[in-house]
């Protein structure tokens, strides 16, 4: 039965964590295949020829790529427990909106806010702060983005924000703090306290060390390019 579902992922990727959680919430057995992104497997290259990225879900031999697309696929294929998206079309549109916002805006702005320099960084810090305020506003007064129970947006947002907290620690910055965003921090703590959710997070120190090493390599490569 486990052979029917395969997940190609990496231990450090928040996009990969999303799918692990979605599959576990649905009570599904699956085979997890850890990819080495510096040496991508044939299976990955064949399954996602367009982007060559993880995560990829393979169900009965059919590959699905793009984490939010995969999450919707999982939700539609296995409807028996823990619905990820609500039933109401308007609520679904709102959920899709916030998930898209995180992937298209928040993540990239955050990278610039933490990694850039000068005016570009200043602008990004301002924008990132505004984005977090929007998220805080959307969450206020609710247990989760999904309402009483956590769902699509919570899963999409949680791993990304946890990843950004790791990046924040590496960069020794303080853009996301409990003082500034109490509602978001309370929500993150709640999810961290959930066994199934927490089980999809990598060990924090390992994650920090990994991101630190990657940032160092990226910065070295960038300075070499400048020097050349």
């Amino acid at each position, binding site marked *: 039965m486990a052979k029917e579902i395969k997940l190609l992922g990496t231990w450090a990727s928040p996009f990969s964590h999303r799918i692990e959680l979605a599959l576990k919430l649905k009570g599904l057995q699956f085979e997890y295949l850890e990819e080495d992104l510096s040496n991508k497997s044939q299976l990955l290259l064949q399954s996602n020829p367009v982007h060559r990225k993880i995560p990829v879900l393979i169900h009965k031999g059919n590959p*699905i790529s*793009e984490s939010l*697309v995969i999450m*919707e696929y999982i939700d539609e294929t296995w409807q028996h427990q823990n619905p990820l998206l609500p039933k109401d079309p308007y609520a679904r*549109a709102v959920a*899709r909106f916030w998930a*898209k916002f995180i992937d298209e805006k928040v993540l990239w702005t955050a990278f610039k806010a933490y990694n850039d320099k000068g005016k570009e960084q200043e602008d990004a810090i301002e924008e990132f702060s505004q984005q977090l305020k929007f998220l805080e506003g959307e969450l206020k007064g609710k247990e989760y983005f999904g309402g009483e129970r956590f769902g699509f947006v919570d899963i999409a947002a949680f791993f990304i924000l946890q990843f950004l907290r790791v990046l924040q620690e590496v960069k020794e910055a303080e853009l996301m703090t409990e003082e500034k965003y109490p509602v978001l921090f309370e929500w993150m703590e709640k999810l961290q306290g959930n066994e199934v959710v927490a089980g999809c997070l990598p060990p924090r120190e390992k994650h920090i060390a990994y991101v630190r090493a990657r940032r160092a390599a990226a910065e070295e490569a960038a300075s070499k390019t400048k020097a050349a």
Partner: protein
Amino acid sequence: MASNNGDVKLIGAWASPYVMRPRIALNVKSVEYEFLQEQFGSKSELLLKSNPVHKKIPVLLHNGKPICESSIIVEYIDEVWSSGPSILPSDPYDRAVARFWAAYLDEKWFPNVRAAPMAATEEAKNAAVEQLKEGLALLEGAYGEKDFFGGEKIGFIDIAFGSMLAWLRALQVMLGGVKLLDEEKTPGLCKWAAKFSADPAVKDVLPETEKIIEFAKLLVAKIKAAAASS
């Protein structure tokens, strides 16, 4: 007359391919709506209030409630007016494939349509054109034996991609006759483009290529002026 459908308004602009998507979708469902066109160069109070996060068109207002992001609006239309012809396929895997291509178009392909005419150097322009051709080759591969990506009738991918046809055609002219849709390299897409443009849900929505070329000139001038003054 359309009271069963509720109050349906769409904030948008005639030239925007993203706005064309929900317009086509509403036509597929035969839903009448009020088209509230934004003035070029300014954003209405209603738009800013309805989409405070992005301040962008299109925004669908259904009984006063705003829905933003073109692909999300199209899915909403499909789900609400479920008795009409369906836009997304019914099989979850086919739906995933449709969503995958829509995401690809928005994230990877369309940015090059915008980049090509704005490119500062010949090199940058050629790079954008190459990316566009690669994408079209992928789409040619994804296009099957039927008339449309959606099969016998237009569906989600047709709307996501087809909404860009007028701009694609305009770009070919603006770049001095570069062949993006190519009878030899993308024969399927050429056939598809003609069928899509003629579809009843599409033909009054897709602008004429000349009008887009005129508009593009205005837009490029405006962007360059803004860049020069900043």
